[in-house]
């Protein structure tokens, strides 16, 4: 979808207000938006919301051949998908930042993913899907990917000596969680005129300034990645300052992820898994909840005409030919050689089972006094 053009008025307004230390959404210059992490029913899927930006991440695993340069390590593949163009610039940049922050910083214990050295290893695939871009997609995507990896549990497997191995069901052997050495989190700062850093820019702020600094940092104050986006010139002093601010925030975020994970495992033990329903705020005007409803088998509300439309009446094969109405979509018809046009009353029920054609259902009256057995007509 084409983005709306940013007007000069908006641009000037945002720039001037930042100079006066004011942000459009009333946040402080270094304040981040609210973070929400919701885990799904299956291990490894998570929905993260940072303000209005929403990202969904899912981790899955597969057995693969390892890389030749690292024969006893598993592999991680990260894929980021955005809603508009397939391989747009921002998509590439986000993917590369995630790859560097998560893969190159070696936060996952890849050696534990090895099954048989040089032959078979686990390949973890992280699919990140950007649902809503309201600014700062990189941060959100990174938190989603890391939470999904931390939540994911892979099946256990045993190897026999001959190179065969068995992957066990979760009912046989417990699932194994992924080992994460540390939790790298990205923080993005938009840079106005190369001097003023704004934490967690909204979409408007991102578009106005274009320049930004993304830092990948973990809770031990280790920088995992540094990336400058957009056209800008900054001073090394500023980068230092941003790193220090980011380090503070990283601790809080990692604590939050860990506590959400703990809460989720407690819920699972009590078999009280809510899944993604938790993210739905029921007090909102735009949401609705309907509990389990039982279906009455003998309800008479349904009109008979409607039900007669769609049921297929089973008939046998000795049948005289019946007239088929021209409007119906039918692909097979059985003709009797002694064609006898039946009475105009008797018609045929047709049902289209095709999902692609718009199905029309013609109602036909069945002459109930007709003792003759009727033919089955099955249509595609």
């Amino acid at each position, binding site marked *: 979808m084409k983005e709306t053009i940013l007007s000069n008025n908006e641009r000037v307004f945002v720039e001037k207000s930042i100079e006066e230390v004011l942000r459009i959404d009333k946040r402080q210059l270094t304040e981040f938006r609210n973070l929400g992490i919701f885990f799904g029913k299956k291990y490894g899927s998570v929905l993260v919301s940072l303000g209005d930006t929403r990202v969904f991440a899912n981790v899955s695993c597969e057995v693969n051949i390892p890389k030749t340069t690292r024969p006893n390590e598993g592999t991680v593949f990260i894929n980021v998908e955005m809603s508009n163009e397939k391989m747009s610039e921002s998509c590439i940049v986000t993917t590369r930042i995630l790859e560097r922050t998560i893969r190159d910083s070696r936060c996952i214990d890849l050696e534990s993913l090895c099954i048989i050295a040089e032959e078979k290893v686990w390949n973890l695939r992280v699919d990140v899907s950007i649902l809503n871009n309201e600014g700062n997609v990189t941060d959100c995507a990174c938190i989603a990917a890391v939470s999904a990896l931390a939540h994911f549990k892979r099946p256990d497997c045993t190897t026999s000596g001959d190179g065969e191995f068995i992957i066990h069901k979760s009912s046989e052997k417990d699932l194994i969680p992924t080992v994460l050495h540390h939790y790298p989190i990205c923080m993005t700062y938009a840079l106005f005129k190369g001097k003023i850093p704004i934490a967690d820019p909204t979409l408007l702020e991102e578009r106005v300034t274009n320049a930004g600094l993304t830092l990948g940092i973990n809770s031990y104050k280790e920088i995992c990645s540094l*990336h400058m986006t957009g056209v800008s010139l900054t001073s090394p002093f500023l980068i230092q300052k941003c790193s220090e601010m980011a380090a503070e925030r990283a601790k809080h975020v990692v604590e939050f992820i860990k506590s959400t994970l703990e809460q989720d495992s407690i819920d699972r033990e009590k078999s009280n898994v809510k899944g993604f329903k938790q993210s739905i705020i029921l007090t909102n005007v735009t949401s609705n909840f309907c509990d389990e409803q039982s279906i009455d088998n003998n309800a008479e509300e349904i009109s008979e005409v409607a039900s007669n439309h769609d049921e297929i009446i089973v008939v046998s094969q000795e049948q005289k030919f019946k007239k088929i109405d021209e409007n119906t979509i039918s692909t097979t018809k059985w003709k009797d050689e002694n064609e006898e046009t039946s009475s105009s009353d008797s018609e045929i029920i047709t049902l289209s089972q095709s999902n692609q054609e718009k199905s029309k259902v013609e109602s036909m009256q069945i002459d109930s006094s007709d003792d003759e057995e009727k033919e089955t007509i099955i249509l595609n």
Partner: protein
Amino acid sequence: MAQELLSLQGLRIDGRRQNELRQIQCRLGVLERCDGSAYMLHGNTKVIASISGPKHPTKNSANKNRGGDEFIFNVRVKFATFSKNGERQKVVKNSKKLGEIEINLKNIFKSVILVEKYEKSQLDLNIEILQTDGSEICTVVNAATLALIDAGICMKEYICACTASLTNDGVALLDVSHLEEICGGPTLTIAALPRTGDHEQSVAYVELSQKFYLKDLNKIFDCALMGCEKIRGILDEAIRSNAFELVNSELTNN
């Protein structure tokens, strides 16, 4: 593979000291048909950069730009198939890594080229990496700077890039080679404008591989910036001697 990055005598794997650059050689104007070109040798890394432009925007670029009056800057980076040591480099279409390098180069140079002078025109930068031995991005940026100057494009200043690394003992190493990248610590790549000073806006691009402690950031940054200064000196010399030659040849011709 566990070699010491810095021996007791203070020598690295290839015999340099901790703050020594590798051998750099550069030549401008190596390709005659292009508007500007440069060949750069940095240790064992070899890069050729060529500029075509400023020219009228081609149809493709004009379409992508959607009719705006902006300056169009296209970058194409290519690794030669024989560039890496050992395996043949496969040519991958739409490779994310290459895509990222191209985007980064665009952003770096757009921040220094005086864009107002080149509205409604297009500039194409083609980079071919002939041999890699660590610090490829650096060499590419330096070669591109030379090519831009050879083509006569107006820029605020030279952009110089350099890498720096950190040993386990916290000693900063300047200009990492491929071996040091693999078995060493984190590598920081910076593209900067060396003359504008420390607290001014001077850094155009930063890239970090692996992870390291926040408190070491200063050290490694300073080391890399110092490397940029040195490289600037080398580039400047090469440019001036090239200009001198050109002027001389013009005079002798006339």
